[in-house]
């Protein structure tokens, strides 16, 4: 024990093992930075969050011999004067001002060789930081294809730093770049950098470019021709509608076979578990609670993966910016902007990736408004419930050609959700989230064919993120739900069939107590305790509503068979003489389902994306209120 006097400062905490050296990638959006990052790191990368802000933190590494190089893909920015949250992260991290994150030891500036006329000033800004820097010029192939020719050696001489030409999506130049990254201390320093403001930087850039450009790059003819078509006031709108339809079609049908085989495997797993393991409540928990519960959501992975793949493909190809352009005016009428559309469109498959997609929206207010209304988009998990209720209570009378009353009802429910989303977005942007948004500007990059490997890596990362974040929540929810439905353990009277026994168990479970307890709240909507249990089940995963209700109503058949179950609902309940579920209740339940936020995964992802409980709780509350009022009105009218 040292005899140090009280005035002596405490000894510094012993240094941790030398932090690994990290190299940051900086560049503007559309510069090919992410493709380059993926080409350098492959699958050795992960996505997280920066502490305190909801900005993607992408870090990865590669190994060459005995050296491991850590890479950080910083958010894209157009300059080092940040005007949005993610740009602010880039600037702060570069300056070592982000709490808890060390400044990078070296920097790779990633710049599109065809737009140096715009990006050179930012290159100068980054070089002025005085850190070891190398310039990676991407799209070299496109430069040549469009008749451009830049003397890279001259550029290197002028700037002073190493310059490497790469073609990210074909892996050209990646090896050279990796070699450079092994030892930043060998990089030459920048020189002759402009002092002064943005305008003087542009003068410097223009003069420099004149000296190093052998032949200026010409406009991309393909892009011009495609845009004349795709951005044509009339034709462009039609293409856009076709794009939206294609999106829906792809999500609902293409993912089908994969989803069916997933479902099949999971059912087999559950059955096998029940058959093989000793009969106990733990086995039933595993089979019915965990495997079936989590499985109900895992089944959606093909659809979600396809959704991510499509979004990323259209984003990387350049079409997404055009889509945002086409729809911007309409989004502007409700106070949002074009980029919000993609997030809302994605929510039609599942709100979870849709809400994750709001990260591309620079303005925090626009982003929040989009997040708050995204669940109104009719996600595909609601379809089984709609299918059941429509089948039971809406006749299949043909209306126009192949379209039946049932089809119209379904379309009506979709429309109700869409209109409500727009309405509430407008209300929020005019009310609570009122105020100046960020300036709207959007680069329209030339059309490019994306790198499939980079795409695959990004899809993989997002699906893993979805599974790990939403998956944990759903797992917990499924387990809780299972306990609620199966405790206290109740033995059915002798001679009951399997489904009657299941029904007896549920009638005496905690969930039933809850359901009955909730009756005062839901009675005006026409719901009884059985539907209330279904709603509780839906919380864990909307998909579970139907299977939960099937158990509650002692449906003997396969709950996937809509017709049989629907038929049961309209039959008379022997105890009351009334149908099991009245039509009025059916319609009221449909409307309730359009609005209510009955999905724990959505709540979890909103919490993650808004950084706290405040907004998810608000969202839960306002959606419940809207759902209640909507269902109430429907029930009173229908009854």
């Amino acid at each position: 024990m040292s005899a140090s006097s009280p005035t002596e400062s405490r000894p510094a905490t012993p240094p941790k093992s030398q932090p690994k050296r990290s190299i940051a990638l900086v560049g503007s959006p559309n510069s090919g930075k992410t493709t380059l990052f993926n080409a350098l790191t492959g699958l050795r990368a992960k996505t997280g969050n920066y502490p305190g802000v909801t900005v993607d933190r992408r870090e990865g590494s590669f190994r060459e011999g005995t050296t491991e190089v850590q890479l950080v893909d910083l958010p894209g920015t157009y300059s080092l004067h940040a005007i949005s949250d993610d740009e602010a992260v880039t600037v702060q991290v570069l300056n070592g001002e982000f709490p808890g994150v060390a400044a990078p030891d070296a920097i790779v500036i990633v710049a599109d060789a065809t737009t140096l006329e715009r990006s050179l000033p930012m290159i100068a800004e980054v070089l002025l930081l005085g850190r070891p820097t190398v310039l990676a010029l991407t799209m070299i192939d496109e430069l040549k294809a469009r008749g451009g020719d830049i003397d890279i050696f001259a550029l290197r001489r002028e700037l002073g730093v190493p310059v490497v030409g790469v073609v990210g999506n074909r892996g050209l130049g990646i090896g050279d770049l990796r070699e450079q990254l092994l030892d930043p201390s060998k990089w030459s320093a920048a020189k002759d950098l402009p002092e002064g403001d943005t305008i003087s930087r542009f003068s410097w850039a223009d003069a420099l470019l004149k000296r190093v450009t052998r032949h200026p790059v010409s406009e991309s003819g393909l892009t011009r021709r495609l845009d004349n078509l795709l951005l044509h006031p009339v034709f462009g709108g039609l293409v856009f509608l076709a794009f939206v339809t294609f999106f829906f079609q792809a999500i609902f049908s293409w993912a089908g076979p994969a989803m069916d085989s997933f479902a099949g495997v999971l059912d087999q797993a559950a059955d096998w578990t029940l058959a093989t393991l000793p009969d106990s409540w733990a086995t039933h928990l595993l089979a019915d609670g965990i495997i079936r519960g989590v499985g109900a959501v895992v089944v959606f992975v093909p659809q979600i993966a396809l959704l991510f793949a499509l979004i990323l493909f259209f984003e990387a190809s350049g079409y997404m910016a055009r889509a945002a352009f086409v729809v911007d005016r309409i989004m502007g009428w409700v106070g949002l902007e074009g980029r919000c559309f993609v997030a809302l469109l994605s929510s039609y498959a599942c709100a979870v990736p849709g809400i994750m997609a709001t990260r591309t929206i620079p303005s925090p207010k626009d982003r929040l408004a989009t997040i708050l209304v995204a669940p109104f988009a009719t996600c595909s998990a609601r379809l089984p419930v709609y299918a059941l209720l429509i089948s039971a209570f809406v006749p299949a009378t043909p209306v126009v050609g192949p379209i039946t009353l049932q089809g119209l009802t379904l379309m009506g429910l979709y429309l109700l959700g869409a209109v409500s989303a727009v309405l509430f977005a407008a209300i929020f942007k005019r009310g609570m989230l009122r105020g100046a948004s960020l300036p709207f500007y959007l680069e329209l990059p030339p059309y490019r064919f994306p790198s499939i490997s980079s795409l695959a890596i990004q899809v993989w990362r997002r699906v893993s993120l979805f599974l790990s974040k939403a998956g944990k929540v759903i797992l917990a929810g499924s387990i809780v739900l299972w306990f609620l439905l199966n405790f206290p353990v109740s033995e059915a009277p002798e001679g009951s069939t399997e489904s009657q026994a299941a029904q007896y168990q549920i009638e005496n479970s905690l969930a039933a107590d809850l359901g009955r307890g909730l009756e005062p709240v839901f009675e005006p909507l026409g719901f009884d305790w059985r539907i209330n249990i279904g709603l509780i089940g839906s919380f864990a995963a909307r998909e579970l509503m139907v299977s939960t209700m099937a158990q509650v109503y002692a449906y003997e058949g396969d709950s996937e068979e809509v017709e049989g179950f629907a038929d049961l609902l309209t039959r008379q309940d022997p105890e009351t003489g009334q149908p099991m579920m009245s039509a009025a209740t059916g319609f009221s339940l449909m409307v309730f389902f359009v609005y209510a936020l009955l999905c724990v995964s959505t709540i979890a992802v909103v919490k993650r994306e808004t950084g706290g409980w405040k907004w998810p709780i608000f969202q839960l509350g306002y959606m419940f209120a809207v759902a209640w009022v909507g269902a109430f009105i429907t029930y009173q009218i229908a009854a």
Partner: protein
Amino acid sequence: MTPTHSSLADLQKFGMARVVRVLGDDSTALRLCELGFTPGTEVDLVRRAPFGGPLVVHLRGYQLALRPGEARRVEIETTGGLR
């Protein structure tokens, strides 16, 4: 008599123009500057979305979509040449 200047929002298709300056000195003005709208820069209008929607301009070798509100901040003078 003060010469009338027009803004980017008024630019007609196929007309070439040069940037005079960016109005204002807030973060929007700075960002417009950083996007390349510096005095003397050549710009031309590629297309306009209908019903007062955004416009697409071409400058410094790339294409940028801007809403009319932001475009009005960029003062230009037409040079009379055709694209």
